[in-house]
């Protein structure tokens, strides 16, 4: 089941990972014995219908949740063994996250939202401005730094969220339905942007989506989930000609 391109080093590796929830007397297997290796620099799309367990798997890989059993190796550590503080450090320094509903803090300006991870990472004030400006320039929002999220379109908000996710220069970018709240044109713009950032910064992208055509158009590998299990996994041709230009 597990196939990894031999040439690439693993960015993240899952060994028999399960996540069960108990609801009253019923045990729900949100993620059931999933093993998967994702190479560094890959763009993996986790596909599946609603309730298939793809978001739960993403949360486990992002260190937001802990597996009931199994091991998740990332950045040379098994996330299942990390303390709460070490997991926070992993989220802060190794990964970036983009959500379906953007999750920007409404009372902060774009620049302040993007600066937030730098505050948490205790980056020096002098360095922050330059990094925020660079991140916002990459998502082409450098003219709107002082606007608040409510003054932006959905696409612009998601671009701000991407800037916030990459400002700490993460190795892995997790995107949970990043186009879910956007129209198809804007959605494609966002994915093009992710692709562009991936190639320029060389990061790994793991995206959860239920839109197969988009996944096939942009991802280098597709992993399909159903009922908490990894149903199939296959290499994809990846970005077609013209995508990401």
């Amino acid at each position, binding site marked *: 089941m597990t196939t990894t391109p031999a040439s690439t080093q693993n960015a993240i590796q899952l060994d028999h990972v399960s996540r069960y929830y108990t609801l009253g007397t019923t045990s729900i297997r949100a993620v059931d014995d999933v093993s998967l290796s994702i190479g560094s620099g890959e763009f993996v799309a986790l596909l599946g219908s609603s309730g298939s367990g793809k978001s739960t798997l993403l949360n486990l890989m992002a260190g*937001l949740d802990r597996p009931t059993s199994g091991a998740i190796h990332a950045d040379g550590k098994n996330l299942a063994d990390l303390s*709460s503080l070490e997991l926070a450090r992993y*989220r802060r320094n190794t990964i970036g996250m983009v*959500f379906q509903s953007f*999750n920007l803090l409404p009372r902060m300006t774009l620049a302040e939202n993007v600066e937030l991870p730098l*505050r*948490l990472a205790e980056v020096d004030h002098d360095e922050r401005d330059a990094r925020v400006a660079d991140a916002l320039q990459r998502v082409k929002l450098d003219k709107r730094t002082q606007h608040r999220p409510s003054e932006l379109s959905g696409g612009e908000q998601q671009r701000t969220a991407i800037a*916030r996710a990459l400002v700490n220069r993460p190795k892995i970018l997790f995107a949970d339905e990043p186009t879910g709240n956007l129209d198809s044109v804007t959605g494609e713009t966002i994915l093009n942007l992710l692709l562009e950032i991936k190639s320029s910064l060389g990061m790994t992208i793991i995206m959860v989506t239920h839109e197969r055509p988009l996944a096939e158009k942009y991802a280098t590998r597709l992993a399909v989930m159903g009922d908490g299990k990894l149903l199939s996994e296959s290499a994809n041709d990846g970005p077609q000609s013209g995508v990401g230009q």
Partner: protein
Amino acid sequence: MKLRDLTELAVRNLREAKFRNSLTTLGVAVGVASLVAMLSLGVGLQQLATSRLTKSGLFDTVFVTPKFNMRGGPQAQSGSPQNGEPRLLDEEARQELTKLPNVIEVFPQIRFPTEVRFDEKPYPTVVAGMPQSSQQSGSFDGMVGAFFSSESADEAILQIEFAKELSKDTNSLVGKTLSIRYAERQSLADGSGGFSIIPKEKQLKIIGIVETEPASGFGGFGNGRLLIPLGVAESLRATQVNDLRDAVRGGPAKPTYSSLTVRAKSTSNVDAIEDVIKKMGFGAFSLLDASKSLKIFFGVFDLILGLFASLALAVATLGIVNTLVMAILERRREIGVLKALGASDGDVKTLFFFEAGVMGFLGGIGGVIFGWLIGRGLNLATNIYLKGRDLPSIEISSVPVWLVFIAIAFSVVISLVAGLYPASRASKLNPVEALRYE
């Protein structure tokens, strides 16, 4: 997170729910204000009481008497100390007492009956010698005329009741002259310790009239109605009660003092001086114990006032808990985002803790200002009341600097304690659930 970032985020969060946070902070301010007002009242009253008592000279003096051996032991002797054995309270002893460390002055209690002649009429009364230091006792504040120009000036100050006997228009007495008749003691040449009494007369210029009965030092001068400088009183060698006692006992010919008042530099020296004097062979006592009791009384008084005021602060504390718990509900998703971006449980906890601390700090400052204003109001109201009764103004409320700092620190600490539960609750939020929260 760095302190600066924490502070910025905390203040920003507080500004977000301005109205609610202002009300909470106001609640803290009211609690602190009641605490400050109550304690400032306690402090003010204590200062008022102690300053009056200290000025009166009751607490910085040791009253020294001769120690008589009642059980047939060795007789009191003059000369160097014999490990607490009885000694005569004579001039030599007085000089020794004067040289003790931390002693400002030593003076005898001189009071003797006299007949005042004024306007050709006799007025029997009691004369008392006043040391120059008694001017600071507060008894002469607001007197008519002036205090004695020197220790040896032939001047007199009249107690108002006595002055009224001399003239209806008491103020007109100042500048006039009166004479006193007294009995001078002259020791007999045979060295038997006996003495003869010679009637004498002395002219004194009236320089002032005092309303209160001055009491300088324990044993005081309360009964004196005609006050003269102590130096003059001593030079008169007027016969006093203890002269008769000395003569009957058949003691040495030289005069002794019935008592001496030793004034210490400060009340803190009184204990040590009292001990030394006892070891020298004299009876000594002070009112320091009474002063200690006074301090205990005010300590308990402050504690009770503080406890009542703390109730208001306790209510304010519940306000902080409520506000922060509400904030957690409202900012659940934000907490989730912060955690997803890498905030640790400790970061989230510290952030909420800081918000509680900032509310406590601002509430503390506001409370001190309110409390100070309440104190001012109390002073104003009291003084209006006193003025209406022709009494001098006083400060019943006082906010010393230490109270300002303690009140603010107390407010911050209480607020941090109030923030413990909400902060801990916020830090334990599951980020996945928090992010799902709408």
